[in-house]
C-alpha cells in the first residue's frame, strides 16, 4: 500500500463539474482549480500523510477509496490554486472550518451504503454532528473505526458523559473490560430501530438478541418486560444488583400496591428478618419475573 495508484505530481487534470444534486457541492473547491496529485500535497503536509498511510482511504486497490481517485484532492478539492499560493487556504475544503452538513455531504458521497445510508435524518445528523465529530482520517487514535479517541466510550462520552459514567457502576455489562462497546448495541449512523439500536425493531428485540432466555413467548407474560426491558433495567449500568433502576423491593412496589406483602413498609426493622428485603428480595420467590412456563406461574412463582 505504497500509494502507487495516487496521481503523479505535476500531471494536472481538470476538476470534474459538480453534480448539482450532489451535496458535496456545498464543499466545492475553488473554480478553475486543477488536480495536482498527492506528491504536491505531501511536500508540505507530511503530518497528515502519516495518518492517511495507515487508513483504509489509502487502499488504492479499493476503487471507492480516495487513493483510487484523486488522492487527497478527492475530499479536499482540486489543489492547484493552493499549490500555487499556499497562503490561499480557503480554496480547499478544510474540514475543520466546513459546516457539519458540508462535512457529512462530502463523506457520504462514498460512505453511502449499509448503516451510512441512514445517516441523513438520523438523531446525530439532525443535531449538527458530522463525521469528524467522532472520526479522524489523519490522526485517528483508536485501534479500529478511525476514531478521534482511543475507545468508543471516550468518543461517545464527549456528549453522553452520564451514560459513560454509568459504565463504572458496580452493576454493569462488560464494556469496561473491553468485551462490548457502545456500538455493540447502538449504531450511531442511524437505525431503523428506536434509540439508534443496532438490531431488531424494538428495545426488547435488541436486548433479547443476546439475552434470548428472556425472549419467550411465555405462558405467563410479565407485560412490562415485553414492553421494554428499560422499564426496570438501566442498560448502561447502575449501583443496584442486575442493573436495576432502583433497589428491590422498592422497584416492584412502584407498580405492585396490592394487599398484604406487596404493600408492606419494609423498614429497618425488617431488613435482617424478612426475606422480602434481603438477598434477592421479591425475586427470591417470584423467580421467573421475565415470564414463566410453569402452569402455576401466574405470579412468576411456581
Amino acid at each position, binding site marked *: 500500500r505504497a500509494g502507487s495508484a495516487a496521481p503523479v505530481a505535476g500531471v494536472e487534470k481538470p476538476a470534474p463539474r459538480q453534480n448539482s444534486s450532489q451535496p458535496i457541492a456545498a464543499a466545492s473547491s475553488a473554480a478553475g482549480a486543477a488536480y495536482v496529485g498527492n506528491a504536491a500535497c505531501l511536500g508540505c503536509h507530511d503530518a497528515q500523510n502519516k495518518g492517511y498511510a495507515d487508513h483504509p482511504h489509502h487502499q488504492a486497490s479499493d476503487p471507492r477509496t480516495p487513493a483510487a481517485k484523486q488522492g487527497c484532492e478527492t475530499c479536499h478539492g482540486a489543489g492547484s490554486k493552493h499549490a500555487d499560493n499556499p497562503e490561499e487556504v480557503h480554496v480547499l475544503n478544510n474540514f475543520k472550518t466546513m459546516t457539519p452538513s458540508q462535512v457529512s455531504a462530502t463523506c457520504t458521497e462514498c460512505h453511502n451504503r449499509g448503516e451510512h445510508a441512514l445517516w441523513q435524518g438520523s438523531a446525530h445528523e439532525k443535531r449538527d454532528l458530522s463525521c469528524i465529530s467522532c472520526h479522524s482520517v489523519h490522526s485517528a487514535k483508536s485501534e479500529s473505526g478511525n476514531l478521534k479517541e482511543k475507545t468508543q466510550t471516550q468518543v461517545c462520552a464527549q456528549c453522553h458523559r452520564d451514560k459513560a*459514567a454509568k459504565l463504572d457502576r458496580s452493576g454493569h455489562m462488560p464494556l469496561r473490560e473491553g468485551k462490548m462497546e457502545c456500538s455493540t448495541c447502538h449504531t450511531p449512523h442511524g437505525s431503523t430501530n428506536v434509540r439508534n439500536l443496532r438490531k431488531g425493531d424494538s428495545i426488547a428485540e435488541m436486548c433479547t438478541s443476546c439475552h434470548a432466555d428472556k425472549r419467550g413467548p411465555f405462558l405467563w407474560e410479565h407485560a412490562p418486560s415485553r*414492553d421494554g426491558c428499560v422499564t426496570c433495567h438501566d442498560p448502561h449500568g447502575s449501583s443496584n444488583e442486575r442493573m436495576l433502576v432502583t433497589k428491590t423491593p422498592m422497584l416492584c412496589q412502584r407498580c405492585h400496591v396490592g394487599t*398484604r406483602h406487596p*404493600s408492606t*413498609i419494609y423498614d429497618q426493622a425488617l431488613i435482617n428478618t424478612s426475606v422480602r428485603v434481603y438477598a434477592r428480595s421479591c425475586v427470591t420467590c417470584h423467580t421467573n419475573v421475565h415470564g414463566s412456563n410453569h402452569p402455576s406461574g401466574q405470579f412468576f412463582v411456581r
Partner: protein
Amino acid sequence: QATSAPAPVAQTQAAKPAAAAAADESAPWPTTTGTINFGSRTTSISGDGARYERYRDMSDGLFVEGFRFATERRGWVFDTLADHVGRRDQRYSGSAVLPGRFKVWGQWDQIPMLMSRTTQTLFTSTTPGVLQLDDAVQASVQAQATAAGQGVALANAVTNARQVELSSRRHIFEGGAQYIGHTGLTLTSSVRHVNRDGQIPFGGSFGHSNVVETMAPVKHQLSDIDTSAEYAQGNLLVRGGYDGSWFHNDVTSLTFDNPWRLTDIGSAGSRGRTSLPPSNSFMSVNGMLSYRLPHRSRATLYGSLGSLRDAGDPLLPFTVNTALPVVPLDRATTDGHASTSSINASFSSRPTKMVDVDVRFRTYDYNNRTPEFRIVQRVGYDNAVSVVSPAGETEPFGLTRSTFDADVRLTPVRIVSAGIGFTRNVEDRTHRIFEQTRENVVRVTADSVTGRWFTMRTKFEHGERRGEGSVSEIAAELSAIGEQPGMRHFDIASRNRNRITVTAAATPLNVLSFDVSAAAGKDDFIESEFGLRDNQHRVYGAGVELSPTDEIGGGVSYSLERYTALSRSRQANPGVQFTDPSRNWATDSLDRSGSWTGHAEWLQIKRKLDVNLFGDLSRSRGLYRYITGPVVDRTLPEEAVVPTTLPQPTQLPLVRSELSRVNLDVVYALTARWGLGTSFGVERYRVSDFTLDSQAISRVDLPGALLLGYQYLPYTAKTFWVRAIYRY
C-alpha cells in the same frame, strides 16, 4: 478494545509509543505490522476477588495479550488478533480483506461472569437441573416440632456447606463474509454461536416462610444467522435481509430439595420444581428501499416481518409433590407463537442551507398468538392444590406502537440553528389496564456549531401521555386482583414529561478544550394515586482536556447525577384496611452518583519513555425515606387527606458504594522494535447495602431461609504487570 479504563495493552497500541515512533520513521510504508505484548502479572486482593475480576480473568502468572499482526499479500490484507491467551477471557480473531471486493472474518471470544467465590451451598447435583440435599439433613430438620428447632437443625447442617464458585461463561464464535460487486451489489452473511454454561443464583420458595436460594444451571446455546443483500446504484439503494436466531436451553426445569421436609405430604413437598427459560426461535425478513431525491432529500422505506416461537417442550406438571393429586393441564405445551411486523418510512430534506425537514412514521406490532391457557386449579410452591375461582387464564400480551415524528430546523446564520419537532405516539396493548395510550411530544432545539471552536446544543421537550379507558372499569379490574384501584403502572400511566438538555464544548486554544453539560427533567404521573407518582433527574457534567504538545496531555472530567422518585402505597390487608387512606405511605427515594475520570500522558520522554496515568472514581448514594400519611405538595386533588394510623417506620440506612481505580503504565523503548514495560493498577470497592452486604447476609441460614451467601463485599486489589513489547 479497552474502554474507559484503558488497559496497558491498549495504550501501547494506540498512543504511538516511543518505540512505534521510531519504527514509523524507519518504515513509513509498512506492509507487515503488529505487536505482541507478553510478560507476567501478579495480583494481591483483600476482599471480594470475584467482583474485582467479574468479566475478566486477572489470575497470576504469565500472560500473552495484545497480539496484533497485519500483513498484505497480493492485494489481500490479513489481520489477526489475540488477547488474554489461555485465560478465561481469551479472544482470537482474524480477517482477510480484498479491499473493495471481499472480506471474511471470524472471532472466538470468551466472556466470564464471575459472581462469587464465597458462596456456599448444601445442594449437590448429579443430574443437570436436579439439586439434592443429604436426606439426613432434611430428616433432622423435619423432625423438629418448632420453627426454632428447625432453625437450629439447619444451622448445624450448614456447618458442612461446601464453598462453590458462582459463575458462568459465554463462549462466542462469530464469523462472516462480505462480497462487494462491481455492479453495486453487496452480499453480507454472518453467523454467531454462543454457548453459555455455568450457574446463576436462583430463588425457590416453599411458601412465604421457607425460601431457598439455589444455583440454577445455565446451559444455553444461541445460534444466529444474519444475511443481507444490498444493491446501490445511482440514487437508489435496495436491501433485503433474513435474520434467524435459535435459542436452546439444555435444562428447562429445576428441581430442588426442600430443606425443611424429607417426605411429601399434602401441605408441603419434599422437593420443588420450577421452569427455566424455554427454548425458542425468532426469524425475520426485512427489506429497505432508499432513494436520494433532488434538493438534498432522501426517502426511505423499511419493513420487516418476524416470527417468534416457543420450541414446543412439554409443560411441567403442576407439581412434583407425589402426595398431591394430579391436576390436569389445559394443554401439553406452551404453543407460544408471536408474529412481529415493523414499518419505518422516513423523508428527510435539506432543500436549502437554511432549512432541514425530517418526517418519519414508524409502526411496530407484536402480535402474541399464544392461545390462552386456562387454569381452574393450581399448586402454589408444590404445597397444596387450590381452586382458582373464577377460572384463570393466561394473558398473552401484545402491543402495537405507532409513532409519527416531524422536525423542522432553520439555520438563519451559519453557526446557529433552531428547530421545532412534534411526535405523536399511539400504543395499543392487550391485557394491560390501559389498552391504549396516546402521547404528544413537542420539542424545541437550539444549536450553535462553530466548527472547532465552540459547540452548544440545547433541547427542551414537553410530552403528555394519556391512558385511554374507563376509570371505573380500570378500578374494577385492579380491585379484582387485589390492587388499589388508584394504582397506575408507571410505564403506561398518564404522564406529563418535561426535559431539557444543554451540552457545550469550547476549544479556545488548540491545546485546550472544555465541555459542560446539564440535563434536567421531571415525569409527573398525574393520575397515579398509587404507584410511582413522579420522578426527577438532574445531571451535570464538566471536563477539561489539555494537550500542550503531541507528547504531553491530560484531562479530567466530572459528572453528577441525581435522581429522585416518589412512590406511594397503602399498607393493607383485605377488608377495611384496603380502603383506609390513613394507611397510606410513600417512599421518597434519592439516588446520587458522582464520577471523576482523569488521565495524563507523557510520551516519548527523551524519545524512549512513555508514561500513562489513568484514574477514576465513582461514588453512589441511595436513600429510601419512608413517609407515612399524605405527602405535602404531591397529593392528588381528589385524594382523601387524613392523618396516618401507621406506626412510625424506622428509616432505612443509606446505601453507599464507591469504586475507584488508578493505573500507571510505563513503557521504555529499548530499540525501535522492543520495549519493556510495567504497569501498576489499584482498584478499590467499598459498599454498604442493607439488602446484600455482609451485615444483611450475615449467614446462609437466615430465619426461614437457606441462602447461598451471595453478598456485596468490599475489595482492594493491586495488580502489577511486567511486560515486553515487540513491534513488527
